[in-house]
């Protein structure tokens, strides 16, 4: 391990594979917090997970859970189960889990970018935003049960979802239940009183390299699975190069960083919450 991992980061559950993906011999190798791990399926689809930096006698077995179409594990001792997303159980939703895209930056940077409404008109022009409608109206940030909630965001979006046929005014709620996970609730174009749910589940391979899994729980009675995949990947990959070019690769916490970043309440709240929980993995000072 390149760096001592702080307890807040260590004791979380992490998505390390999609449920249905598998390599040769029903194994899948990846890395979690700088440690090589291997997932092995048995004939019944049960997944056992081991860390490869320890021998069996040294207790190399890791916990294994399945949730939201993903396989989860932890290198530490999680205080609770994997966070709940009760909204996704609503009838009529279509569920998606999209396999990882690797981004050479801190996973914290990916979450912070996801929370940032201001970049929509520039990076996702014609889809999630459009110049000159660049204003981000005031929104509320709260801490509830040691989670961050960002509420009352609203934005004009030319094509808010694959099913959107015209621009609509979209309401956004963000929830950060985990330092490397953010869940977004946004107005569903099909049923404006309901929210589509899109979540970013980040696997920090190293402090400055992450795999990003995405899940979605949507109302859409028109588009095929592949059409929705293309819509999602288009948006998601518009961010990748920008994320990789951010300097420094680690997320600055504390020190002078908060005055030097753009005054963005959600970003500041996220950084403070990470600091208050003693997080240092994937972050730098100053």
């Amino acid at each position: 391990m390149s760096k001592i991992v702080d307890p807040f980061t260590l004791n979380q559950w992490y998505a390390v594979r999609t449920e249905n993906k598998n390599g040769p011999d029903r194994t899948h190798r990846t890395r979690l917090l700088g440690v090589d791990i291997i997932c092995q399926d048995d004939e019944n689809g049960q997944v056992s997970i081991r860390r490869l930096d320890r021998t069996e006698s040294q207790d190399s077995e890791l916990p294994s859970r399945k949730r939201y179409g993903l396989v989860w594990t932890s290198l530490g001792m999680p205080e609770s189960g994997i966070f709940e997303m009760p909204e996704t159980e609503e009838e009529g939703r279509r569920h998606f889990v999209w396999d990882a895209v690797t981004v050479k930056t801190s996973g914290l940077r990916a979450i912070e970018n996801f929370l940032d409404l201001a970049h929509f008109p520039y990076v996702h022009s014609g889809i999630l935003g459009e110049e000159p409608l660049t204003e981000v109206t005031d929104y509320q940030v709260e801490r509830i049960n040691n989670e961050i909630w960002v509420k009352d965001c609203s934005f004009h979006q030319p094509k808010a979802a694959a099913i959107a046929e015209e621009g609509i005014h979209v309401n956004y709620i963000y929830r950060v239940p985990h330092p490397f996970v953010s869940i977004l609730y946004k107005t569903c174009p099909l049923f404006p009183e309901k929210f589509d749910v899109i979540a970013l589940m980040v696997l920090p391979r190293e402090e400055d390299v992450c795999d990003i899994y995405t899940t979605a729980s949507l109302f859409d009675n028109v588009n095929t699975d592949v059409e929705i995949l293309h819509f999602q990947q288009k948006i998601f990959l518009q961010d990748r190069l920008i994320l990789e070019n951010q300097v420094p690769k680690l997320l600055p916490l504390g020190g002078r960083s908060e005055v030097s970043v753009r005054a963005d309440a959600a970003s500041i709240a996220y950084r403070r919450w990470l600091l208050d929980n003693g997080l240092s993995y994937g972050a730098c000072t100053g």
Partner: protein
Amino acid sequence: MKLYDYILSGNCYKIRLFLSFLDINYETVPVDYYPGREHRFPDFLEINPLGQLPVLVDDEVKLRDAQAILIYLASKYDTSGRWYPRNPEAMGKIAMWLSFAGTEIMNSSNARLHDMLAYDLDADKARANAHAAFRILDDHLVEVGFAGQEWIAGTQPSIADVACFPYVALSRDGGIEHDDYPAIQSWLTRIQSLPRFIDMPGIHFMK
């Protein structure tokens, strides 16, 4: 006209871009290349036994290979004749660079697949080969630039430019920077400034 398409593929984008330059309407058939690997399943292998994208279907004509599709589209639909001029020297030079786009420049695609989608490839070798290809392209652009030629195969943009553009422009996705290639940088900007240019994730409009 129907294009079997993947949104993140530079070779599919090549065709989308050229169809936009020509102002031609078409429909897309989105293929789940990643993570679904749909292009390797029997249904798609019937369309292209090589298991590769893009594939273009235009009435009775079905074509694979992005470079072949560019030749077809330019020959059939470009009324200006400038994208694929019918003279021996231009046709020979264009063919040479189309081949370069389909071979040497694809090293950049391999580095990108490795870095972005965890493909099991030798990324360092791919990056070294891509840099060697970019050196050749940059030297060529400098050389023809002395004679006032701004495009790869002539004084007008041709399908050679369209063919070489995507994976040069996308190379930073695979850790290949453009810093050492000033002539390439200017050439990319010229393409991005052409009328009816369209973007894709990783390639932006010029403002």
